[in-house]
């Protein structure tokens, strides 16, 4: 699984800054991601991880800095732009419309329409059954609003949405926060599978053990600034903890 950090990165965020009412939420942060690589983003609540990543997913627009995809500069001003660059996001809140069923959520904003321009509900449900059969074979509740689903089931709908549309770049914001041990394991396996397909993944995660297990590199943020990016094989749990709490980069991994 070695990722050679050479060649053109899949994504490069260069010198990104964004401020809200004078508070610098993200302060000149640069970070990159290679195909088939998982980069963990760590930091305290409010360190700026989610804000940084929202600049990539189109939810926010950076005040300064550039985004490069496959070495080319792109402009991402809204979620549609991000999607057209094959960037898919699994938000911490899951971003599901609770009153709609799984298929409607999966295809939200990208509905399958028939030749007359009408939404093809049956085909969307059939496709949803197909992908859910792969991701979560126990999933049965196709005809109820997602508000009636368990946390894990909701999560699998959100994941299915990101995976279905052939993401090249996947952003996962604490994907296992609401899950039980079994489901967490399923997500871990999925990440390995997607990685093997050459998809680049940004993983925002609080749990250092998950980061050590799933990620190739870890980027730590504190107070909107990047503390540093390290290869997880070169550091210990304590090193990363030190980066998160003290904001100090370990000497040997520099």
């Amino acid at each position: 699984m070695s990722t050679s950090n050479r060649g053109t990165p899949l994504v490069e965020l260069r010198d990104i800054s964004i401020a809200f009412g004078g508070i610098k939420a993200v302060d000149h942060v640069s970070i990159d991601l290679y195909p088939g690589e998982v980069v963990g983003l760590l930091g305290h609540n409010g360190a700026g991880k989610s804000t940084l990543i929202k600049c990539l997913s189109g939810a926010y627009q950076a005040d300064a800095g550039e985004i490069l995809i496959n070495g080319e500069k792109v402009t991402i001003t809204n979620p549609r732009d991000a999607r057209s660059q094959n960037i898919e996001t699994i938000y911490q809140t899951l971003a599901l419309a609770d009153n709609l069923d799984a298929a409607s959520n999966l295809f939200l904003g990208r509905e399958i329409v028939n030749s007359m321009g009408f939404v093809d509900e049956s085909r969307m449900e059939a496709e949803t059954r197909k992908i859910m059969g792969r991701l979560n074979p126990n999933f049965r509740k196709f005809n109820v609003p997602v508000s009636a689903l368990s946390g894990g089931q909701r999560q699998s709908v959100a994941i299915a949405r990101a995976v279905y549309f052939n993401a090249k770049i996947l952003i996962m914001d604490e994907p296992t926060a609401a899950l039980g041990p079994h489901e967490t394991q399923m997500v871990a396996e999925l990440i390995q599978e997607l990685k093997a397909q050459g998809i680049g993944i940004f993983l925002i995660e609080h749990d250092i053990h998950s980061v050590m297990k799933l990620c190739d590199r870890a980027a730590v943020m504190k107070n909107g600034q990047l503390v540093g990016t390290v290869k997880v094989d070169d550091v210990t749990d304590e090193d990363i903890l030190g980066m998160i709490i003290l904001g100090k980069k370990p000497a040997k991994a520099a």
Partner: protein
Amino acid sequence: MTDTSHRPQTQEKDGPIAAFLRATELDPRLIGMVGALFMIWVGFHLYGVFVLGDGSFLTPRNLWNLSVQTASIGIMATGMVLVIITRNIDLSVGSIVGVTGMYMGLLQVEWLPQWLGLGHPAIWVVTVIFGIAMGALIGAFQGGLIAYLSIPSFIVTLGGLLIWRGVAFLASDGRTISPVDATFQLIGGGPFGAVGATGSWIVAAIAGAGVLWMIVNGRANRKLHGFPLRPVWAEVFMAALGLGLIIGATMVVNAYPWPKGILKQYYDALGQEVPADAFISHGYAYPVLILLVVAIGMTVLMTRTRFGRYVFAIGGNPEAAALSGINTRAMTVKIFALMGALAGLSGVIASARLNSATNALGDLDELYVIASAVVGGTSLAGGVGTIYGAIIGALVLVSLQTGMVLIGFGDGSYRKIVIGAALVLAVYLDILYRKRIK
């Protein structure tokens, strides 16, 4: 898991009612609403039979009038469903009816005849298009203020309620514009503004064919994708129910004959004597057919198009909708424009029916329209609502209103008390229902 598509639901032990509902896939709330409507109708009729000695509610004449009176409110209620689903409100629809009605009155009575000549066949067409477009523009403007300037819809449309009513008054200096164009007037209903017996059966045949096509096509579609099918008896039951309702309604509107005065007028125009056994049916009134077309169109819009999906998604989770790439602001403008257009259409029907444009046109309609949507199961919390529910809601409210008049409580105060109480009760029952299914 390869066979998931054939048995998606876990089997539970059901009573006969639950099994029936599952097989027919009927919404229990729909059944509840129809049941309530039926009880109101029978209640008023029986009160008439036993207390007044004459049951006049369940008569072709009253039911026909009921259908015409429901049209204007019902058309707007379908639009209000979208507004409320997306967690907004539109208090200005009554005033939009007033202002579009007034300008349409001026256009067809005072302005167009100068250019086209009195009674020109294009007058009514131009007037109708103008009224609907004016309503849409007002709605789009209000929607723009709500979406792009982030002013709450309650405030924008409360302002609209006052402003458009004032504009309507100033437009005519408070005069009543009357009578309207002769063809335009037919849109409001009345003996000549209806399709007659044969026309009604043609409508019924088309509607019946539509029901059968939906059932057959729906079944074929499920088969195509390997989804569970409804049992055949349930399909037959649904077809019979649909056809039965259509045939029943058609028989009712055809059982209401033209009154003697109209018959005389009609035969006089032909230069004939009125035959002794003369019986000319009203049939479906034009405004009712317009409501029908609007209802079908809005249902298709809400259930079969991306636009409808986005309306529900915005209501369920506005943030998620935006993150999915839906332009929620543009959607808000479109929804309010649609609401305005429907209010303009209601302005057409209301002024045509009254044969005049008055300052009171559409007064307090906003309350009936919102109440119809809410009684019909549209949740003020957003995300939930149906077009058919809103129309049944409108029928319930108009039934209460006309029923009170029929049984001799026509004086406004009783009517208001009953309708107010019905609104609160309907919402309470809906809350109970939602709690129970959770």
